[in-house]
């Protein structure tokens, strides 16, 4: 079964690549893919227009996730880095279960990645920090250049990965990585991250609820958590996940 036929609506938790099981960047013509097995994350949650969300449990299945901006090795570095920024731990899922790297890949491929809506006329000069970001580099450029400095990151042990990230904490790449991790965790799933609204469920955010009229002045002092909805999928039923 070729899951790439689901095209850009595949949302896979690709960040859980276990070393040795995942091979990156099979270069077929100029298209890059992440090749991952469902076993890497205990099943693969997939979306198709016909079936909605469903979980693929056959652990041996291989999935090719098409990349829109990253090259395969870049995607592996980003996948590993965002998993340290927002790790999976006893408090719940992290970037690797929510498709953060896929979100970043798609987002960079769009108008944001090329600074389509930023004022990019010269001259480019540096000024006081209060004047905001003044450089010429686009988000795509910042990733492409910055990731060169993290070559092999995905193969490091976790403490070494944390050390490597600590070293670049002040860099533009890191600030984008952190910002985009949160965007991938908590933006509407239509953008490719927040897989199955896991990010929202983690923090108790119910997504775009159309009507809170009867609840907004009630539930004082206690958590009120209606089932989440997204712009694309409607309400998440209990059968859809785990």
């Amino acid at each position: 079964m070729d899951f790439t036929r689901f095209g850009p609506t595949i949302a896979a938790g690709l960040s859980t690549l276990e070393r040795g099981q995942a091979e990156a960047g099979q270069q077929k013509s100029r298209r890059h893919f992440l090749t991952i097995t469902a076993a890497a994350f205990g099943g693969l949650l997939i979306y198709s227009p016909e079936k909605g969300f469903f979980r693929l449990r056959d652990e041996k299945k291989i999935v090719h996730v098409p990349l829109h901006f990253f090259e395969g090795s870049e995607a592996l570095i980003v996948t590993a880095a965002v998993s340290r920024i927002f790790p999976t731990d006893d408090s719940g899922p992290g970037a690797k279960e929510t498709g953060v790297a896929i979100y970043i890949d798609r987002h960079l491929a769009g108008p944001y990645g090329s600074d389509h809506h930023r004022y990019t006329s010269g001259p480019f000069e540096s000024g006081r920090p209060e004047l905001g970001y003044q450089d010429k580099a686009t988000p795509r450029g910042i990733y492409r250049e910055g990731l060169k400095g993290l070559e092999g990151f995905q193969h490091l042990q976790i403490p070494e990965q944390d050390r490597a990230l600590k070293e670049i904490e002040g860099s533009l790449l890191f600030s984008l990585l952190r910002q985009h991790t949160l965007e991938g965790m908590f933006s509407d799933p239509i953008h490719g991250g927040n897989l199955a609204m896991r990010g929202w469920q983690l923090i108790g955010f119910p997504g775009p609820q159309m009507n809170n009229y009867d609840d907004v002045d009630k539930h004082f002092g206690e958590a009120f958590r209606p089932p989440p909805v997204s712009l694309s999928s409607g309400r998440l039923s209990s059968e859809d996940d785990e």
Partner: protein
Amino acid sequence: MRTLAAADIVIVGGGWAGLSMAKELGSRTGLSIQVLERGGPRKTTDYFNTMDELDNWVRHRMVQDFSLETVTFRHSGGERALPLRQPGSFLPGAGIGGAGEHWGAVCDRMSSDCFELYSQTVEKYGSKRLPEGHSVQDWGITYDEIEPYYARAEKMIGAGGKAGNLRGKLVEGGNIFEGWRSSEYPLPPTKIPYFSTLFDVGAKSLGYHPYPSPAATMSAPYTNPDGVDLPACTYCGFCERFGCMIGAKAQPTNVLLPVIARHKNVSIRTGAWVRRIVFDGSERAGRARGVVYVDGTGEEVLQPADLIILASWTLNNTKLLLLSGIGEPYNPSTGTGTLGRNLTHQVSLSTVTAFMEKPLNRFMGSGAAGVLIGDFSGNVLDHTRLPFIRGGTLQAPSHGYGPLGNFGVVPQSIKSKWGSEWKKAAIHYYDRTGRLAFQGEHLAYKDNYMDLDPTYKDKCGDPLLRLTLDWRDNERRMAEFAIARSIEIVRAMGAKEFSPSSGLGTYDTRTYQSTHLQGGTIMGKSPQTSVVNSFLQHWQVPNLFVVGGSTFPQSSSARPTLAILALCSRTADAIVERYLKSPGPL
């Protein structure tokens, strides 16, 4: 250049100011009216499925495209200005409705002394109390004169709230420090979410006078005097920086467009980027003949008109007059000229972030839901013992909070900004975090002004507007005072931990403050110190009116929209009742 058939009236800009003028003049006269809006068409139904925080809150879907035009910024005259390359401290709108589509809809009135700020301050404290380098002045209008127009604007937008001063009688539960009102709000206050309720209780325990936020998010279904029906707000929380999905927030597209659509004499042209007002005469006197705009194909078009109403956003009103050579540009070293002076940006800051014990359910709310206190307002504080003059309101907003704008805020005891420790704390505090917000008066200063940038250009090749702006000690001390009081209040609210703001410091373009920029084409009593008279008519060019926040001589602590609407309807009255009968200076 293509020349179109002349219109009786051309209105530049399709936001609150321009469309309210189109509605008034279009429904009260049979004159042909052409509105020119440089952005695209928008209507309330466009927003039905746009509750997307990434698109709206983070990527600024509703905001002007900075790749086409921005402003340059410097903190003082000696520095080189650089362009603001991405949206930051303010968020101008683009398209029909302008920023009025994505506003938060708090619609408070200015305190009654604001309109005579210079003379009342001098009367109270003597002229020495105004800070050095100020250029504070009176508006040329009094609160008593604007009150009926405030009331009219509130009825138009379905304002909800509770009066604190009904014709001089103070009413408990309203803002007892406000100016007198001729009538109660047209709608009751909005519902008050949990965090704002905690503020209400905490503020009362300290002897303050909390009141519900004046709100143009409908607290109940409403039919305004123009016969426009608005549904009740559902507190979905996707409000400020969003268009309302159901049209329950007063927006130009749901309050004004349906009325304009009834009148065939008004037409709206989108994609029309006005570059110049064509003008015969000198800097001192003349007559406007029409406007030149660039249409969507890049062609230049001349739209002749007998009467021109400049109603683009604050900053563009100034830019267009500078580009058109209408009026004398302000020169800060000589003090001569009026065009571009008195740039202000309301003092807006989160004074303290409070970490509460219990979850707040803060995804529910509206842009205007909340509780305020007026106890620190400029007309209330006794400044004889304070290191600043004037003041502002303190608010516990319940905007409706989404994770992209708010996740990750943790107490100062958590040092990391990523990784497991931070993640756990961020999850715990995500729905336990509340902020108090201060909106303060910004006095006008001689060295805060606008002119044309010598280097950077917009998409048409015209110079960008250059802002020269920084805070002074008066604002910094006012902010410190507000932070200190806020800490006392969040303690009274039972906050477990809190992080106070570090204060104003240097003006920072990177983080959002408010879109309440004012000045540049200010109103006043004399052509020596203002660009337009109190009817917003240009002193030198009587067939040109300039409307909007650009006419405010300095910033009050109230959000500017309601005053913009009130002044527009006063101008419309003056045009219909006086100017059209005898065109000339009013």
